[in-house]
């Protein structure tokens, strides 16, 4: 393959040059700084040469001639600082909060030894107004979120101004969900395939999470809308341990049982943390381990279904009985008189109609999908740990974040209609996923004002979906003989051929999967990267100079849709092909075998051959792994003089997307017969470079008011889900034979760019209250958009869909937060965001339906799907401190969290049932929107407002050296069934507009009878199976909010 290398070389040269030029001064994120002044308490005179140390560490500084000091490179956390000077009493501040990238101001006023005072201990008050931030930085610290009635980092992020959580995705300031950057310990924690957060963080391991909704420093990159940076706790100077367990199960509560009008989801959460010194105070460790279990991972409104009960009730009614005997004879067992037959328990026998290929004499087995619970599970084990070595001038910090998760999948391939699959639970698929992120950082302190850091990170994420009966051997998935061996001959007897799975039961026109049917094909994916950062920091007078650089090289492999029925049939029909695959490329039939195998199921493979063997290079038949590589160098100068802060930075980004695209998009060379793309026709475009200036100011207006202004340019790579595909899938696109929602073919892509302006101010209202107002404007260009690529008449390739950098977006908004620091017993916070996000597309494939109608795609700016104009939260915490309120109320706390948001835009639409079956009625299909017709402007309608109230009460009891904290929290206290999404046909979440519209349903209803109608109501309206099937489904995307859940816990802290 033709590949241009000059850009790579040029980039490396630039990096080397910049590093040489700026060697004396660098800086790194994840650590904070304390600055302040030491003065004589009586005279106010500066005290040059006074010492300030961070207690329990080797960190510290001496004051300069002006009595001022800086202490750098302090890991985010809570510390005690002590100042001492000859002739003066020592003063110690405890509870000093240090946040990554920010400067904590702390002034000491030392009393003279002549005064009759002992050493002074002061508990520091957290500053209400941070004067060093030049952009809106929201900090979620452990001491706050530990008291909230929520759990999990995503829930915590969702409370922050500017952040929208919708359908389980995080959006910041109107950016797409792949525009959020996730960092853990300074290392990338984002899945490059879809942009999601990839690293699980245990809340108890989190020191703080910084949410920078835009405006971040030049040292951050790769994200356009915001950065969520998470820092683990460090080892403490003293030994601490904690064990915590939570459950949502009342004693004796079984699945399907309701207690206090709520179900249990089999939730259990165990957390164990240990922290302390290992060797004096020089080596400290922190470790946290969590096991999180859900017996039902889909915590959704779920009424269950008992088909037998439905039929019994209908047949008990003379009118419906007569209709059913007329219309539903195929589904009822009738005696010689034409009356329905019952079993020994009086239940009417129901049988397969045979309309879906099944045996029409088969009796439909009774099953009862109980209310409340879908029988899937999710089990996750997570480790977060840090190990710190403090051998000044050398400091080392290692961290590990590891997760292993297994989930039971209730979906059938990509379809998600668990209610219809419950007869086949033995073949539910499973997914295993593991993530490991290891970081190692060396800090070398050169002087009190200068240090450099070197960090190396390794990330590995693996995922596979498999049938637990057969594991990785996908050749057995559709093999009736293997099914017979694994599940018994009576299950395998449902097979219609050696590789032809059971037909579905057709029960009053609804398809219920027969036991034994394969539920998924084998899938595996791995992503890993190795990255390195080098950073220098120097404080030169009032300038905090930072220069740094990083390189991140990924390796991405994927194999999907392998083990399909067609492939297995192919092997039996052409046994020599199976032998050729065994023999490998030397076999004369190997190429034919590979192409036929790939074609039989549209296998998408890169980094693996189409059979699943790892390959490391592109070759005539295989696609090697993808190696996107990112690099950056930056320079940042934070000038702090008095209260004036000027934060200026410049960032140079390098993006090598490792794309493979046809030489000529209009006429891509491909073999339509073999569905193959010749390697010689693919080129890898040049790497891209971008320069992004950032500039911010913070300056005081009064003693209590600080303004900040920020301008910045931000660039990032697109999500690679739309970029990478094996050649077989590319060729499928060129045939134009299928409608493909996500084409997985892209033209030469550029980075996506954003310009953001931000202005805001912090106002301290009183000594315990302050508010923050930030207005922003974002202009995003080059977001991915799908378009139609036309081809010349007579060309092999037909017009096909392809991604390009074309969508653009603008967002403007206002974020307001009011913080009431704890005074007396009350603390509170109010956050509110107004935003108006408009774009030419909400997602890369938003315009897929239009590609079949217009070329080019009409440019229409409209509200994005995830634009919640109003969103906010109110947190109220009432807490008795130690020694307050008497023995019963002492250390008792209550916390209320009220969240609200306006709905999100959607488009009222119409259209016929198209290719939907009677079981799906008239649901408008998101996976093939070609038949959908908008009845109004895009995004002109809005879903209803949503509000939610959570509650927590906790009580701490001291048991010797151990604090026992007993707590209960209730999520969705009022059990509100909020509408999160609606049917596009009706704008209603309860009515899909099918049964209520005779034009759509009259014929089907007339021919199918009351049992069909009743099942439609239960399956599709109450339990939303057809809606889930056309969306992500379940708790990822639902019409209604999560029902009330009680959680009980106890935590023992030493």
């Amino acid at each position, binding site marked *: 393959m033709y590949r241009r290398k000059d850009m790579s070389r040029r980039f490396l040269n630039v990096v080397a040059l910049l590093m040489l030029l700026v060697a004396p001064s660098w800086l790194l994120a994840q650590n904070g700084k304390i600055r302040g002044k030491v003065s004589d308490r009586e005279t106010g005179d500066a005290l040059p040469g006074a010492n300030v140390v961070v207690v329990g560490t080797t960190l510290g500084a001496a004051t300069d001639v002006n009595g001022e000091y800086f202490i750098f490179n302090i890991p985010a956390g809570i510390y005690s600082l002590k100042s001492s000077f000859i002739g003066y009493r020592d003063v110690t501040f405890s509870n000093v909060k240090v946040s990554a990238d920010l400067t904590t101001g702390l002034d000491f006023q030392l009393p003279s030894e002549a005064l009759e005072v002992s050493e002074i201990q002061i508990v520091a008050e957290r500053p209400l107004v941070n004067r060093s931030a030049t952009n809106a930085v929201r900090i979620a610290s452990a001491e706050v979120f530990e008291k909230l009635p929520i759990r999990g980092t995503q829930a915590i992020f969702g409370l922050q101004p500017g952040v929208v959580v919708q359908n389980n995705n995080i959006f910041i300031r109107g950016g797409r969900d792949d525009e959020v950057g996730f960092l853990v310990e300074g290392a990338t924690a984002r899945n490059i395939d879809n942009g999601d957060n990839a690293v699980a963080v245990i809340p108890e391991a989190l020191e703080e999470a910084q949410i920078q909704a835009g405006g971040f420093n030049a040292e951050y990159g790769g994200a356009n809308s915001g950065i969520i940076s998470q820092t683990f706790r460090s080892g403490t100077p003293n030994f601490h341990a904690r064990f915590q367990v939570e459950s949502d199960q009342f004693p004796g509560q079984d699945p399907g049982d309701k207690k206090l009008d709520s179900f249990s989801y089999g939730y259990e959460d165990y957390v164990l943390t240990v922290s302390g010194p*290992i*060797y004096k105070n020089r080596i400290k460790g922190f470790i946290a381990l969590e096991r999180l279990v859900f017996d039902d991972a889909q915590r959704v409104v779920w009424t269950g279904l008992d088909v037998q009960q439905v039929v019994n009730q209908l047949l008990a009614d003379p009118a419906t009985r007569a209709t059913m005997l007329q219309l539903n004879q195929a589904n009822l067992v009738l005696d010689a008189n034409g009356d329905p037959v019952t079993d020994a328990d009086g239940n009417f026998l129901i049988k397969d109609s045979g309309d879906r290929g099944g045996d029409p004499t088969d009796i439909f087995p009774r099953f009862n999908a109980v209310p409340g619970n879908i029988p899937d599970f999710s089990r996750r084990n997570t480790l977060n740990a840090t190990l710190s070595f403090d051998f000044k001038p050398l400091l080392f910090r290692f961290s590990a974040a590891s997760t*292993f998760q297994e989930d039971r999948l209730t979906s059938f391939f990509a379809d998600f209609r668990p209610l219809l699959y419950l007869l086949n639970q033995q073949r539910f698929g499973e997914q295993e996923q593991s993530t490991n992120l290891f970081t190692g950082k060396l800090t070398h302190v050169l002087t009190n004002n200068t240090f450099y850091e070197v960090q190396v990170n390794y990330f590995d994420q693996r995922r596979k979906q498999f049938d637990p009966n057969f594991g990785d051997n996908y050749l057995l998935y559709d093999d009736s003989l293997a099914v017979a061996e694994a599940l018994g001959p009576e299950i395998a007897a449902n097979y219609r051929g050696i590789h032809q799975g059971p037909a579905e039961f057709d029960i009053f026109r609804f398809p219920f999967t027969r036991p034994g049917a394969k539920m998924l094909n084998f899938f595996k994916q791995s992503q890993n990267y190795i990255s390195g950062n080098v950073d220098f920091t120097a404080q030169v007078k009032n300038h905090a100079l930072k220069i740094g650089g990083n390189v991140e090289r990924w390796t991405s492999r994927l194999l999907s849709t392998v083990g399909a029925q067609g492939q297995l049939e192919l092997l039996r029909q052409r*046994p020599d092909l199976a032998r050729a695959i065994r023999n490998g490329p030397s076999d004369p039939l190997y190429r034919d075998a590979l192409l036929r195998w790939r074609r039989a199921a549209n296998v998408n493979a890169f980094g693996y*051959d189409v059979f699943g063997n790892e390959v490391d290079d592109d070759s005539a038949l295989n696609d090697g792994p993808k190696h996107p590589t990112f690099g950056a160098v930056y320079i940042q100068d934070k000038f702090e003089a008095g209260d004036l802060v000027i934060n200026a930075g410049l960032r140079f980004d390098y993006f090598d997307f490792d794309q493979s695209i046809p030489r000529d998009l209009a006429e891509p060379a491909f073999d339509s017969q073999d569905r193959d793309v010749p390697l010689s026709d693919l080129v890898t475009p040049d790497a891209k470079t971008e320069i992004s200036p950032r500039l911010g100011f913070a300056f005081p207006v009064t003693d209590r008011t600080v303004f900040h202004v920020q301008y910045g340019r931000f660039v990032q790579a697109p999500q690679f889900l739309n970029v990478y595909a094996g050649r077989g899938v590319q060729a499928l696109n060129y045939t134009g034979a299928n409608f493909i929602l996500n084409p997985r073919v892209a033209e030469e892509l550029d980075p996506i760019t954003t310009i953001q302006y931000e202005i805001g101010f912090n106002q301290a209202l009183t000594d315990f209250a302050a508010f923050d107002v930030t207005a922003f404007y974002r202009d995003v260009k080059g977001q991915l958009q799908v378009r139609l690529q036309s081809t010349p008449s007579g060309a092999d390739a037909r017009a096909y869909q392809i991604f390009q950098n074309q969508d653009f977006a603008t967002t403007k908004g206002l974020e307001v937060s009011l913080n009431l620091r704890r005074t007396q017993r009350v603390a509170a916070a109010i956050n509110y965001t107004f935003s108006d996000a408009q774009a030419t597309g909400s997602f890369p494939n938003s315009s897929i339906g239009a590609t079949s109608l217009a070329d080019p795609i009409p440019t229409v700016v409209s509200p994005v799907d995830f634009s919640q104009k109003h969103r906010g939260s109110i947190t109220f915490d009432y807490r008795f401190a130690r020694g307050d309120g008497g023995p019963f109320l002492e250390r008792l706390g209550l916390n209320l969290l009220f969240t609200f948001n306006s709905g999100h835009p959607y488009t009222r639409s119409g259209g016929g049932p198209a290719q939907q079956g009677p079981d799906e009625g008239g649901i408008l299909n998101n996976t093939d929107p070609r038949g959908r017709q908008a009845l109004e402007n895009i995004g002109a309608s809005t879903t209803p407002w949503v509000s939610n109230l959570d509650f927590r009460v906790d009580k701490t009891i001291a048991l010797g050296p151990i604090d026992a904290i007993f707590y209960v929290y209730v999520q969705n206290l009022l059990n509100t069934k909020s509408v999160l999404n609606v049917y596009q046909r009706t704008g209603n979440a309860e009515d899909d507009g099918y049964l209520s519209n005779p034009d759509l349903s009259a014929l089907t209803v007339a021919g199918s009878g009351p049992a069909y109608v009743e099942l439609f109501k239960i399956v599709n309206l109450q339990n939303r199976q057809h809606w889930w099937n056309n969306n992500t489904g379940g708790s990822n995307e639902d019409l209604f909010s999560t029902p009330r859940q009680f959680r009980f816990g106890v935590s023992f802290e030493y």
Partner: protein
Amino acid sequence: MQLKTILGLVSVGMGALALLSCVDLPSTAPEFPDFRSQTRFINAETGQVSVLLEQTVGAGLSSFAANIDPQGDTGYRDVPAGDRLVKLAADPDTTLLAVNADAKLTVVIFPRAAVSETRFRGYQERRTFDSVPADTAQVRFIAAALSAASYDIVNASDTTVVASGLALRGSSGYVSLAPGNYTFGVVETDSTTILATAPAVTLADGKRSTVIVFGTAASLALKNFQDD
């Protein structure tokens, strides 16, 4: 050394080791099947024949069975499933024989009047994993006599027709009969004159047999071969 911390960290670390692991992502594909068949050759020629067979594509022909007697068979042998190239050692031409996966197969070597005529034809018994129906016996008849006539097979004891209209290379498919002793005869279609009979055969419960009509129009012979 802070023993408490070390013990704590190590304990939790051990717990983590027990609970955590990387997903075992296979770096290789599962082993693909080497589909086999149980194949026998039956010689309907009038003289001895030797069979050459290509075991795998591109490997070339090699001896499979030498000197099979007239009306003799090789017995079932393991053969790689797939498209197998076969020829008689004495013949110049080859035949591509479809050998199904996991199948029992009878290949009859036919006499031929002209070189263009098919020399080999396979008749599949059953999948090796299929069970034979119980409480019944099955038998099939294959016409391998070099004759232009069409034949029926009758039960010699009462001349009831068991299979009809068998021309050269024709097969009746399996016919279900009650288990027991049978003597089959061959007659020309629409005739009742038995031209030849097979030795008496016992059709066992749940077993299958193949009866082949050998010879020429002037000299027919029937022979029974057990399939199971």
